[in-house]
């Protein structure tokens, strides 16, 4: 994907939507970066609760960004069909936007009611040490 490719594409008549595609790709890559953050957090963080922060948030935004990016990338023209497709993809984004916090909350709640999962700061520190050793 060098500059030459870009020029070829720009010359081949897809010019009208080229900026939109570029924006979509930017969004997609950004989503990938945030997913990287979430994945690293998922490995590095000491206990379940902190991992939940990483996964819950990183997952939501990266998914939203990537889907938005692909929504833009797949816009072929501004016909009704394209718009409907874009709206459908945004619908996916919306549902993930609703569902993801719910999942975070639900898992947090289940874990917090489990006696074996330490909650408070002092316990958390202890468990973080344990977690490090285990990993």
């Amino acid at each position, binding site marked *: 994907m060098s500059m030459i490719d870009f020029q070829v594409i720009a010359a081949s008549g897809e010019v009208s939507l080229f900026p939109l595609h570029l924006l979509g790709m930017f969004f997609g890559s950004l989503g990938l970066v945030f997913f990287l953050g979430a994945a*690293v*957090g998922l490995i*590095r963080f000491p206990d379940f609760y902190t991992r939940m*922060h990483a996964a*819950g*948030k990183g997952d939501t*935004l990266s998914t939203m960004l990537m889907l938005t990016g692909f929504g833009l990338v797949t816009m072929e023209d501004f016909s009704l069909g394209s718009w*409907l497709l874009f709206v459908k993809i945004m619908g996916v984004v919306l549902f993930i936007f609703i569902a993801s916090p719910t999942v975070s909350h639900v898992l947090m709640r289940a874990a917090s009611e489990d006696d074996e999962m330490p909650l408070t700061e002092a316990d958390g520190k202890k468990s973080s040490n344990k977690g490090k050793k285990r990993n």
Partner: protein
Amino acid sequence: MYPVAVFLLLFLNWVVLSGKFDAFHLGLGVVSCLIVTYLSHDLLYHDRKKGLERRLLEAWSFLRYLPWIIWEVVKANLHVFKLAMTKEGYEEMSPRVVTFETYLKTDFAKFVLANSITLTPGTITMLIRGDVFHVHTMSQFLEDDLLTGAIERKVAEVFEPESLKKT
């Protein structure tokens, strides 16, 4: 009145999903929307006391609320990214549980508040018991941020403006 609103919303949904505008498919859509409205109209708009104008107003102010929450989501991710990638961020971490009481009354407003808290940086709603929220936070300064009640005010502006006037 509410069933009609639900029907219209569902039909909008159908049109977006279907993308076909011939009579046959639209007719199928009407039938399906009628069935779904019959099956589960009581799920949407749980609180039926509010009038139509009020609902429209809510929808409008909710739209204005969305950009803010999306910006918060971005900030939350940057925060997670910092914690995950840098050493300082990792050491800054001090998870704890914070409890506070909300003045929001309706279930839906509480739901929006809880999910907003979950989406904002470093906090996840853990438990709601009545009016009391138990929130898990990642570090000290986020906790302060939460207790000032900025999110709560934002949500109250959308769903319960009268509760703001009282305080």
